[in-house]
């Protein structure tokens, strides 16, 4: 192995460098100039995102511990864009509320460390690297969830997240140990060769799947989601629902399509049941939510159920649709959370009733919110429709017609509650609507990126073809 191999880990090294630079800046920059570090962090991360687009070789280094290919590279770029948008949206909150507590840089350091963990997780080549990446991506988020140390709700969210995450990683570790017992190796490329469908392997797989289900908040393991989203700062809830969930869904898909492929007849049934339960429970609980953050939490649980529709196929089509759906989901959900954050920052209001008559005072924000909700619900012509449509096509191509039918029923249910918010904003009257306010530059940019994403992704079909082409490795 020579020195140039390190350049294949360009994403990781750059992000680590940025984190260290921010640490140094935190030490040496004068206390009353700390807010400049916010601009520096966003600027550096923007450069990192831009550099990430340059192509990278397919490789496997450190004896197979770390591997990357074009699809993983693409997915890292997707995560980068998501985090960049998130940073733009949360910059105002940090500058107004956090910097004067002298803790502004911590937010970026923890967020970037967590993203670094996700990089390692999705390009892991063995279970050890996977486990370290999983923990590195979870622990900083738990610290971030309890970031507003003076608020009781924030601490509660933090403790709920860290305990659930620790249980999840413990359970999946026990599963990994059973897989190690049957296959004699922790390297993916060795396990693929020897894995067979024995009872012990199936038990190991189920425990492993349960552990990752906590991260994606699939149904028997979704209890922490709503509480954590409500209590955590909105940027962190947004990060959890978008980046964290997307990365975990991606690595679950990769592992199920490669090393757990011989068990497909087992996991088809598991995924079938879990997908149905996730969609129904997520949607039905979302109906009765009044708090916007809890509402988006249950909606994101339901969306995770839809992701499983593409996962159940185990084909190239399934891979492509899942990645495409996650890409669209990132933009739609970031837009929704961005609007909630903008309103919460200016007025402190987070309930659905407060949104009554929003269109009269803040037409632009209402339009962004409407686009985001339409995209989440899957109304054509916005991108969300195509994401859902392709997922249904993938599931139908393997003959799961009943599942697709029930998923369509769920889309109808979800349409009802998404339109409740739209009705509140556009039709309902309110004597004291949220007054007109103008967002700062960063927030406007952050919302603009998501709107462009929602509108363009659905209409620009070469992107889907490109993802489909890259997915040929996992079929």
């Amino acid at each position, binding site marked *: 192995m020579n020195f140039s191999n390190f350049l294949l880990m360009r994403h990781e090294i750059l992000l680590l460098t940025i984190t260290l630079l921010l640490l140094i800046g935190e030490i040496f920059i004068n206390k009353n100039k700390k807010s400049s570090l916010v601009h520096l962090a966003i600027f550096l991360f923007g450069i990192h995102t831009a550099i990430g687009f340059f192509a990278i070789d397919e490789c496997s280094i450190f004896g197979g511990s770390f591997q990357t290919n074009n699809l993983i590279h693409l997915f890292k770029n997707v995560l980068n864009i998501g985090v960049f948008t998130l940073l733009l949206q949360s910059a105002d909150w940090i500058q107004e509320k956090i910097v004067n507590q002298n803790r502004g840089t911590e937010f970026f350091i923890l967020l970037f460390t967590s993203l670094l963990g996700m990089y390692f997780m999705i390009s892991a080549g063995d*279970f*050890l690297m996977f*486990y*370290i990446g999983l*923990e590195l991506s979870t*622990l900083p988020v*738990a*610290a971030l969830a*309890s970031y507003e*140390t003076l608020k*009781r*709700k924030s*601490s*509660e*969210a*933090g*403790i*709920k997240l*860290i*305990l659930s995450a*620790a*249980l999840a*990683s*413990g*359970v999946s*570790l*026990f599963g*990994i*140990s*059973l897989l*190690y*017992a049957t296959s*004699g*190796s*922790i390297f993916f490329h060795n396990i693929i060769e020897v894995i067979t469908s024995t009872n012990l392997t199936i038990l190991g797989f189920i425990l492993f799947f349960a552990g990752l289900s906590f991260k994606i908040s699939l149904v028997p393991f979704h209890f922490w989601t*709503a*509480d954590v989203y*409500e*209590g955590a700062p909105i940027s962190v809830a947004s990060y959890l629902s978008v980046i964290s969930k997307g990365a975990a869904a991606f690595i679950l898909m990769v592992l199920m399509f490669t090393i757990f492929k011989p068990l497909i007849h087992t996991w088809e049934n598991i995924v079938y049941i879990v997908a149905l339960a996730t969609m129904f429970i997520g949607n039905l609980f979302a109906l*009765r939510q009044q708090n916007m953050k809890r509402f988006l939490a249950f909606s994101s649980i339901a969306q995770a159920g839809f992701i499983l529709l593409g996962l159940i196929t185990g084909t190239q089509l399934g891979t492509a649709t899942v990645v495409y759906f996650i890409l669209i989901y990132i933009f739609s959900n970031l837009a929704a959370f961005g609007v909630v954050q903008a309103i919460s920052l200016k007025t402190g209001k987070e309930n659905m009733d407060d949104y009554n008559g929003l269109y009269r005072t803040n037409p632009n924000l209402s339009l962004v919110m409407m686009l985001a909700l339409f995209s989440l619900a899957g109304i054509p012509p916005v991108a969300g429709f195509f994401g859902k449509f392709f997922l249904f096509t993938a599931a139908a191509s393997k003959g799961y017609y009943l599942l697709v039918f029930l998923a369509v029923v769920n889309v109808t249910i979800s349409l009802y509650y998404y339109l409740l918010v739209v009705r509140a904003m556009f039709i309902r009257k309110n004597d004291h609507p949220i007054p007109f306010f103008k967002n700062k530059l960063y927030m406007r940019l952050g919302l603009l990126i998501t709107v462009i994403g929602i509108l363009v992704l659905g209409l620009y079909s070469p992107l889907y073809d490109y993802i489909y082409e890259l997915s040929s490795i996992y079929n």
Partner: protein
Amino acid sequence: MIAGISIYEILTVTSILFFIGVYGFITRKNLISILMSIELILNASVINFVVINKYLYPDLLQGVFFSIFIIAVAAAETALAVAIIINLYRQIASVEVKDTETMKY
């Protein structure tokens, strides 16, 4: 290897340990006890890795290395959880689960 004890006995013990941990996580009413239950789960996996490595695949040390990493990460996890619990304790002067239920349904 321990003379007279086969891998079956040890794996039985670790499985029991694992399920005691899961049971404790669900039923305990105190945040610290929940944390201890999680430690039980993690330690069951650690023993599993070491034993499987020693009994079944003694030529490579993958399981032993894995267990060392688990111990290190578990320590970090516990430290963070205890820090958050202390922060919560400052506000509500309690570490009971029933006091952390302001957000529900």
